[in-house]
């Protein structure tokens, strides 16, 4: 399974890189989303996918054997990454919106220098 997910991540990365190499800013933003998802998956995979158990301590127990669950730290990290990714997404989209309104273009090649026309 790890092999398949690794290949899947590779595919996501390939698509993401292809998208952020575009000139159209909309595609670049899509690429950023794909890449952030792919990166989250890498961390997830690093936490291990051996177990299917939820990282909950049973009601009748005081602690859990760490062997039984996948690394919860990876999940914590991804949780933060997702939320921060959301913030970035909102900001980028707003920025893009303004950028298009001011410059009238969505071609990044038109954005080579800081001088205004």
């Amino acid at each position, binding site marked *: *399974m*790890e092999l398949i997910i690794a290949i899947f991540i590779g595919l996501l990365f390939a698509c993401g890189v292809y998208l952020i190499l*575009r000139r159209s800013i909309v595609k670049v933003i899509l690429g950023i*989303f794909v890449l952030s998802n792919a990166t989250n998956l890498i961390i997830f995979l690093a936490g*291990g996918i051996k*177990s299917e158990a939820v990282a909950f301590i049973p009601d009748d127990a005081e602690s859990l054997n760490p062997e039984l669950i996948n690394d919860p730290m990876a999940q914590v990290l991804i949780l*933060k990454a997702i*939320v921060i990714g959301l913030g970035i997404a909102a900001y980028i989209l707003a920025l893009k919106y303004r950028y298009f309104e001011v410059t009238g273009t969505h071609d990044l090649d038109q954005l*080579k220098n800081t001088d205004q026309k």
Partner: protein
Amino acid sequence: MANLLTVLIASLFLATLAIPVIYRLRTNGTGTFLALFPLLIFILLGYLLITLNPFEAGIGDSSIAILEGMELSLRVDGLSLIFGLLISGIGFLILLYSSFYMANQERQKSFYLYLMIFMGAMLALVFSNNLITLFIFWEITSVASFFLIGYNHHREKSRQAAFQALIITAVGGLALLFAVILTGNITGTYRISEIISEGIHLGNHSRYPLILSLVIIAAVTKSAQFPFHFWLPGAMQAPTPISAYLHSATMVNAGIFLLLRLYPLLGGTIMWKYSLLITGSITMFLGAFSSMGQKDLKRILAFTTISALGTMMLLIGIDTVNSIKAALVFFIVHGLYKGGLFMITGIIDKSTGTRDIYQLNNLTKSMPFTALFTFLAVISMAGLPPMLGFIGKELIYEATIQMPQLSWIIVPLGVGANIIMVAISITVFYELFIYQKKKITTKLLIKEKAFPTSFLVGPAILAFMGLLLGIAPEILENAISNSIYFIRGQSIKITLSLWHGFNEVLLLSILTIAGGVILFLLRKPANRFIAHILNLFDIYHLPSIFNNLVNTYLKVTSRNTERIQHGYHRFYLMTFFLVTIAITSLHLFKITDIPFSLQYFSPVKPHVLLLIIIASIAVLFAVFTKTRLSAILAMGLTGYSIGLIYLFYGAVDLAITQFLAETIIMVIFVMVIYYLPTFAVLSTRTSRIRDAIISIITGLFITLVILKAELIKPDYRVSDFFTENSYTLGEGKNIVNTILVDFRALDTLGEMFVITMAAAGVFSLFKFQIKRLKERKKDS
């Protein structure tokens, strides 16, 4: 006493803080007020001069350590006293003079700021007892003089001159830094007093040639010696008070000071002598030669300064007690007459509006006092009795005649340069004050009587000082004896007198004056001849060579910058990806000791596999689709599939968050997308293929890295602690949540800040737009 001097020098820097206040109170009295500070220093130094013992340092160590080995400490001996007196004395007069000269000009505040910093740095430089601080103040003088020369920065010439001066002196500064550090490493101390008292001399060290060359580069660039002399005539773009100050007592003389200061450490070797002799004599003659045939009074003076600096350099190179004595006396002579003459130039310029000596006509009647001061200054320059200039020139001749071996070439060169000096002195005075030109009538814009005393007092004091010291040179004897004691380590009681008796030196003086008069009479053909010679060398016009060099350098660098910083966002990314892959794969394929085997992996789950296939199709669709909405939907599908994968492996919190975040992103995207243009095909087919290849390589590479990482599993997990203690310490059954809000609560707080900042950013982006729209409405 030492502390007092430190405080006074520091007060020059601190006084700059008061400039805005004084400027507001009394706009045109700023200079007069600031002049108090150098005056106090001058008085203190004067007291030190009187009490100076010929063979003892005036003030020993009083140091404030800044860093290890680098301290602010003062050294007062004859050498620094002579320089310090001239710097503070002329500085005082210059500030008085500037009060009127700069009146009603723009940016006076900056003018005084730069001038005070320059003065303070110059004084600190000469009194510095530490090579590192000496270097620092040396650089401050370079930077301050850059601002002073480029003060009229609206003129291109002025900017260019300032730039040249800065680049050339900064090169020297770097050389000095290098030399200082090398010296410190070899001697183990940066203290000048220790170097002198322990008699350290680097002459036999293997690094000596390097250190000496570096020091000479520093001195030669600062003191405008051939072939770096060209920045000095350019520097006359500065306001006249600044030229007066740069030429007479500061800046260019710092190079001379440096050589005298480091003489105990480096001086006296064959290499020292010859390098200084050669540069000195070339510069001396070249400067004098070029000054003939100039029309602009300031330019004439600038070239005579170059000649004078060459003379001092030469005298240091001759390297006898007499020559050092001559150099010191000549420094004083030159400072007095050159400062005076530059100030007089400013007076004439203010009064008549021109500095061209051939456009000025018989100024004696209209400007009697100026004429008197000019007369005293030029006879000092020409080296006539009873001025100090006469003593200076006699000493120079004495030193050159007594020089072993090379006197046959040095003496004629010196006499030649001096003949030109005499001729120039006569020419300047004659053209300005005596000769009645028929066609030209000089109109006076401001009469001499209308000038305030403070404007005329500078040249007056300097001219009369030249006279006073000529009549009573004994005043200087102690300081010069002291300098020579510390420079050459010889305790000789120096005596100075106006009259040396009839000897060959006097004969040479008479010869010089006669030659000067003859040259003056023949000045028209001589000027033509010199102009002809200078034209021949026009292809070697150094300022233009310098400019070309700088321009070529700028062109090459800007081309390189354009190549690297091309502004195409995608090429930056491409470079980034390819370089990262290249570097990491080197390491990736090095680790080969881990066997690859499928048994390490968990079994394939059909439902997850199905999800992955759906997500793969969706992401590929998102890449290739032509419509925006379907791309977003496909993206969302991929995101939800990933969320489900999280869920199947027990990460419930992740799955929930992923679903929510994905939904919000899609909603925002859809909201924004309708304001944006549709996808357009912007790239060419070839570039698409190239990008596809790069992305496939990147994807493959990532897969390989992940697999490699999967195979190297560490035995220990950081999170085991959290898993075991989640309930006992954190009182939480959901381990992931407990880590988030309890164990790592601060991280979560930071994350909230990030989100808040993003929200604030979005808000301001939209708010800005509203403002803009309002502005537009107002405009229309």
